[in-house]
């Protein structure tokens, strides 16, 4: 079972984060890292964006668990893009033996209506399917060692995970209540860890803090903070402050540039401006890192990889996570 000291029993890893922080990439890297050493991990997508297929460079995923990657040491990552309509039909079939009615519903475009009638039914179907995968047994053993969910962004995560409660409050009896109570029990248990992806910028860090507070307030287990796209310092640290405030010695720098055959006079100005940007960005990053530390959660940091993310970079990020203790 994939473990980390902070969440020894967790098998369901929910990955959220502000839009643009790279949560799909991080979820994929997390799944790869957890699959290393022969484990089976399911990576789930819930927003019908086919982001996983794009990351692993495969054709769009059907509503079916498909292998998308082999991890180091023989493990595998399977991926599932949950299709809400298909999940509803599956649910009707599983619990009510209503396959024929399901077809009629599909003809009528009824999912829109079903989900409209019960605000949140959509999320119940999604989380219900996730719970099913987490608890599924095959020949007496768990089907998956871990399930990693590329969840909705921080702005919607609390609603996504607690909507079972909304529905339970709405439908006071009925099977949907039993169903959503079951989902909630898994989400609240130590089997679950909710990880928040952030970059070292003000708004994402603020949203991370808000999400942690909201999740804790409703008793959902927060796992780690995963800092993504952390930039490396390119200037000697003792020169950062001077570069940020434009106090580097421009005369000496121009002379040195000329020494290596460059036009020091005309280059020094623009280069100092670029260095100033870099240094200010670095200082902003430091301040954000300090704020992340104040949140007192287990924190992992992933580097900002050059170029667009491809399958190769996923392995690089997975390695980085493994080295920092996620197994």
């Amino acid at each position, binding site marked *: 079972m994939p473990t980390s000291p902070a969440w020894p029993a967790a098998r369901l890893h929910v990955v959220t984060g502000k839009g643009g922080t790279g949560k799909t990439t991080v979820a994929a890297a997390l799944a790869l890292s957890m699959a290393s050493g022969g484990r089976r991990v399911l990576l789930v997508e819930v927003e019908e964006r086919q982001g996983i297929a794009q990351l692993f460079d495969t054709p769009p995923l059907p509503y079916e668990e498909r292998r998308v990657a082999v991890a180091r040491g023989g493990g595998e990552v399977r991926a599932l893009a949950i299709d809400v309509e298909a999940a509803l039909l599956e649910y009707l079939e599983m619990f009510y033996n209503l396959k024929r009615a399901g077809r009629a519903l599909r003809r009528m475009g009824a999912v829109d209506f079903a989900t409209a009638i019960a605000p949140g039914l959509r999320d119940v179907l999604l989380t219900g399917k996730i719970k099913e995968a987490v608890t599924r047994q095959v020949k007496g053993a768990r089907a998956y060692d871990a399930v990693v969910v590329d969840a909705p962004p921080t702005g919607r995560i609390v609603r996504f995970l607690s909507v079972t409660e909304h529905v339970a409050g709405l439908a006071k*009896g009925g099977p949907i209540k039993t169903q959503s109570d079951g989902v909630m029990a898994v989400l609240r248990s130590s089997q679950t860890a909710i990880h928040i992806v952030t970059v070292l910028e003000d708004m994402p860090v603020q949203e991370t803090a808000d999400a942690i507070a909201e999740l804790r307030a409703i008793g959902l287990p927060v796992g780690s903070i995963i800092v993504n796209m952390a930039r490396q310092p390119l200037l000697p640290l003792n020169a950062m402050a001077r570069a940020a405030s434009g106090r580097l010695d421009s005369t000496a720098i121009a002379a040195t540039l000329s020494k290596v055959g460059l036009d020091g006079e005309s280059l020094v100005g623009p280069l100092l401006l670029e260095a100033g940007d870099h240094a200010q960005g670095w200082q902003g990053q430091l301040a954000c890192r300090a704020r992340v530390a104040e949140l007192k959660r287990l924190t992992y940091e992933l580097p900002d990889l050059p170029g667009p993310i491809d399958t190769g970079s996923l392995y690089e990020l997975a390695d980085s996570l493994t080295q920092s203790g996620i197994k």
Partner: protein
Amino acid sequence: MSGARSVSRSAKASPSRARTVATSPALDLAAVIADPGTRIIVCCGAGGVGKTTISAALALAAAEAGRQVVVMTIDPARRLAQSLGLKHLDNTPRDVPAAAELTAASGGHLQAMMLDMKRTFDEIVEAHSEPARARQILENPFYQALSSSFAGTQEYMAMEKLGQLRETGKWDLIIVDTPPSRSALDFLDAPHRMSRFLDGTMIRLLSAPARAGGRAYLKVVGAGLAIFGRIIAKILGGQLLKDVSHFVGALDTMFGGFRQRAQATYDLLRQPGTAFLVVAAPEPDALREASYFVDRLSTDQMPLAGLVLNRVHPSTVPALSAGRAEGAAENLASSRTDVVVASLLRIHAERMRTDAQEQRLARRFASAHPDVPVRPVPAAAQDVHDLTALREIGDHLTAPVTARRPRKTPARRASSRPTA
């Protein structure tokens, strides 16, 4: 997707044009906001691309240019509200005192608000029903869930609010920041879905079993719908259906209103006074989303102003290539000044590579959408949280269009002719 399209385009092009690099026409936002005919600007795009900041910066710039502006944000970072000099924003447009000084000279004015979707929904109910009936609706558990958590309520209410703001005629320019949806298209689709549902026969039929019954019901709704109703009852339980039924009963007077209102606002968006502004970061995902949106707008014949390519990293000395900068850095690194200079050169090299990658993405967008004007906005070194930083972005947005890279210069045409 865009790759495939660009291939087919370049295949059609003449051999001499096939080698020309695709560039987008420049987006002249100063002209857009100065044009009194522009009444609504809608900023769309994927989450995390800086839509809210762009909306606010553009609103400030427009007010400074003399317009009476209101900017409706959906979920602004607290610091952005603070940067506008406001403790918090709510559902009512408020003056932005810090902007008053800046806009005084031109006679412009800036107000800001943040959409409260539940409040907006409640107000519609209150405006269209008798007080007693309104209370009945507002207290209904189904309504409460619908107005606060239905996927699409936010988009629907954003559009409703836009319609309301427009109706008052108090502002001559309304700038709308769109909700952080699953997809940017939701802003256009969700209101229709929702109003169709609220006004549709389906919701009435679902509540019908509570009123009519048995055969009469079957006769009215047909067997398919009857099955549907039974399934819904089975899954959701009787209580919910009862709530729905009461809700629909109380709402009876408002039927027709929802769809009409949504349609009216939707039509407003198609008029020439509206300008859609698609915001994207120079990243594959954000640009893919922007591409979808641009295609959709043209299908729906909605007026697209152009694309704001937000947070690009252009270099001020593009003449010094990444390779040369790095080569020079390798020849340094002995004394302390040398170490710093080598670092400066490496920072420059990294910036050049980032710039090259961003330009590649921009070219890809340009070849898929050759007619869409684009405005790049350089990344700020630090987070934006005051009016000065907002103004700086506004300056980039509205800077005069320079004919830096004309698409077809006579010289280039002349030189390419012999090879054709």
